[in-house]
């Protein structure tokens, strides 16, 4: 001790100094060992999961194909029509005022406004508007003139012309293409007229209101060669494409059951929309609204809440099941089911509606050895998700995608035994904008992915799928090479027939079948 103190004072390093100075080094070695062990375990899991799987991910937004400015006429400028206009870059100035006001205190709206302003200009001009309700038409005109996306008092361009009938709008030489956002019973008559006049058509879903008109529109679109897109913007959802490529690579094994649902629980979701105070028999062209529907005396409820009556609507099957069907048709190429069986009723919204607010449908695909189950209620928001169930794993889909392993899987049997994968835990996840499908290894990732929380993982600015869907249609028109968009008339035909099979089954209380040869519902 005396010697050591002497050493310290003299500045010499003693053996004791060396021991006390370096004694912690082995600890670093132990931690290094721990880190390498952790790393090799993670690498093993990653490589054994991803080595033979190559998910396809479409990156980025397809560039606009150049062409002359496309002149668009819009039939129906109510709720959905207004949304489609926004997706094309046109909103009423008072909406911009509203976004600006909200953005002052709310970051969500600040981002929303910035995203809308950043949305690419599609090189189109809204030249014509048609709506049977004056207020909708006036709002459509104001939105169409708002080329520069300004608020009230900002610079506006030429206003689109209002036509009182769709026939006149379609006949106008100022219209190259028509966007249809009317009640269901008007989709086909307007689309037919447009196609026959050689105008391209973007039509809201579902394709048709009656079975007979479904054949006619398919024939006419094909004969005329116009560019047709049905408004299922889910076609642009990245995770659906990733799901398709994973399933193609047999990641989830043989699929026997698919479960999809609709769960809403508010008046708006149940189609009980507000009735505009300006609406009356003078401001609404009631006769034109009725069209091919059975005659009914003027009714504000029927006009604004038309989705609640079979007279104008296709109910849950046509309105909401079709979103699910089209997503699955895109992913699995399902086509029209062999049979459909539906049941349900008006159990919650006893407001005079004729369409059910609860609907369950089982659609059989014996050729594919699988059942598609759809279950909907407008009176509970417990979302049961979109699940594709395979023998080896199940795939949960929304904007994100999660693959969970089945404990009895054959494909993953060894990995389950080795503890590389855990039953009912996610093994793959994909979130929009991520650019890669990740093998999930860390507990944190499992936790977040398992709850679909990675939804907020969007790089850069959010892009509206409806914008992308319209853009695809416009690109096909500009390409002018006969190419049709993703939700073309054949896909639309399958969508409509599947929905009609469900509706007939519900209405008639029997199982319906699709005769593949004759292409008829029996």
């Amino acid at each position, binding site marked *: 001790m005396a010697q050591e103190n002497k050493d310290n004072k003299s500045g010499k390093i003693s053996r004791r100094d060396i021991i006390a*100075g370096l004694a*912690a080094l082995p*600890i*670093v070695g132990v931690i290094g060992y721990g880190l390498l062990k952790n*790393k090799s375990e993670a690498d093993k899991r990653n490589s054994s999961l991803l080595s033979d799987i190559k998910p396809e991910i479409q990156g980025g937004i397809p560039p606009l194909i150049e062409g002359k400015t496309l002149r668009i006429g819009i039939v129906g400028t109510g709720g959905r029509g207004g949304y489609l206009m926004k997706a094309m870059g046109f909103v009423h100035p008072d909406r911009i005022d509203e976004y600006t006001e909200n953005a002052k205190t709310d970051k969500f709206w600040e981002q929303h406004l910035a995203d809308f302003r950043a949305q690419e200009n599609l090189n189109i001009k809204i030249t014509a508007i048609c709506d049977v309700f004056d207020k909708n038409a006036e709002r459509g005109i104001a939105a169409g003139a708002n080329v520069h996306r300004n608020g009230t008092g900002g610079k506006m361009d030429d206003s689109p012309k209002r036509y009182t009938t769709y026939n006149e709008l379609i006949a106008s030489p100022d219209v190259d293409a028509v966007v249809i956002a009317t009640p269901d019973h008007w989709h086909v008559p307007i689309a037919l007229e447009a196609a026959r006049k050689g105008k391209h058509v973007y039509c809201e879903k579902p394709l048709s209101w009656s079975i007979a008109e479904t054949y006619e529109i398919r024939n006419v679109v094909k004969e005329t060669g116009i560019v047709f897109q049905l408004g299922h913007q889910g076609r642009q959802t990245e995770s659906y494409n990733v799901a398709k490529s994973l399933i193609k690579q047999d990641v989830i094994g043989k699929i026997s059951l698919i479960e999809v649902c609709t769960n809403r629980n508010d008046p708006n979701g149940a189609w009980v929309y507000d009735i505009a105070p300006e609406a009356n028999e003078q401001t609404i062209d009631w006769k034109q609204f009725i069209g091919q529907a059975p005659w009914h005396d003027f009714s504000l409820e029927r006009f604004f809440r038309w989705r609640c009556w079979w007279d104008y609507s296709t109910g849950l099957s046509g309105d909401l099941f079709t979103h699910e069907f089209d997503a699955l048709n895109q992913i699995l190429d399902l086509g029209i089911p062999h049979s459909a069986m539906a049941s349900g009723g008006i159990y919650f919204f006893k407001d005079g509606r004729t369409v059910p607010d609860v609907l369950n449908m089982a659609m059989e695909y014996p050729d594919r050895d699988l059942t598609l189950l759809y279950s909907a209620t407008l009176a509970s928001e417990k979302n049961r998700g979109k699940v594709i169930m395979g023998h080896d794993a199940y795939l949960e889909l929304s904007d994100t995608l999660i693959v969970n392993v089945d404990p009895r899987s054959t494909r993953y049997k060894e990995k389950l035994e080795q503890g590389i994968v855990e039953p009912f835990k996610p093994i793959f996840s994909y979130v929009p904008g991520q650019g890669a499908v990740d093998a999930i290894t860390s507990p*944190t990732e499992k*936790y*977040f992915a398992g709850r679909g929380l990675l939804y907020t*993982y969007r790089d850069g600015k959010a892009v509206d799928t409806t914008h992308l869907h319209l853009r695809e249609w416009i690109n096909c028109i500009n390409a002018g090479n006969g190419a049709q968009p993703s939700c073309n008339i054949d896909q639309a035909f399958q969508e409509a027939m599947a929905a009609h099979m469900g509706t007939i089954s519900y209405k008639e209380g029997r199982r319906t079948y699709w005769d593949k040869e004759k292409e008829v519902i029996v």
Partner: protein
Amino acid sequence: MYANYITMKHTNLQSFALVLLRITIGWHFLYEGGVKILNPHWTAKSYLLDSGGFMKDFFVSIAENQTLLSVSDAANAWGLALIGLSLILGLFTRISGIAGIVLLLLYYLSHPAFPGIEYLFPSDGSYFIVNKTLVELFALLVIFAFPTSHIFGLQRLLKSKKSFLS
């Protein structure tokens, strides 16, 4: 003033306890940092998005900006590892102590244990204002206030006992 700290006489047990605390905190930091450095896909994005409390917007804005996120991820991972290494080896522990306190304060502020705030990421216990992050933060303050690297650590070999950096 610093000389007062290092000439402070501890009993063997006091020194042992302080060194043990320093090394275990260092261990925790180095391993956390190392795991993040070795995982090329690691990012604090989901953690930041799950932030709560009065600084939530600040942390969310980091998560939503790719450049800021990359910088913050790298600073976080390397910061943790270097602080950990420094505490274990007993070199520059005053600086690493402060850096560690700042880092822990940021973690705490992104997920403060205030009543009424719920996080998606599950908590491993029940906390009211004080949680383990805060305890570790104050433990680092103890390490900062009672330096030991001149007793047990590389600093002892440098003999520059007057340096504030020890």
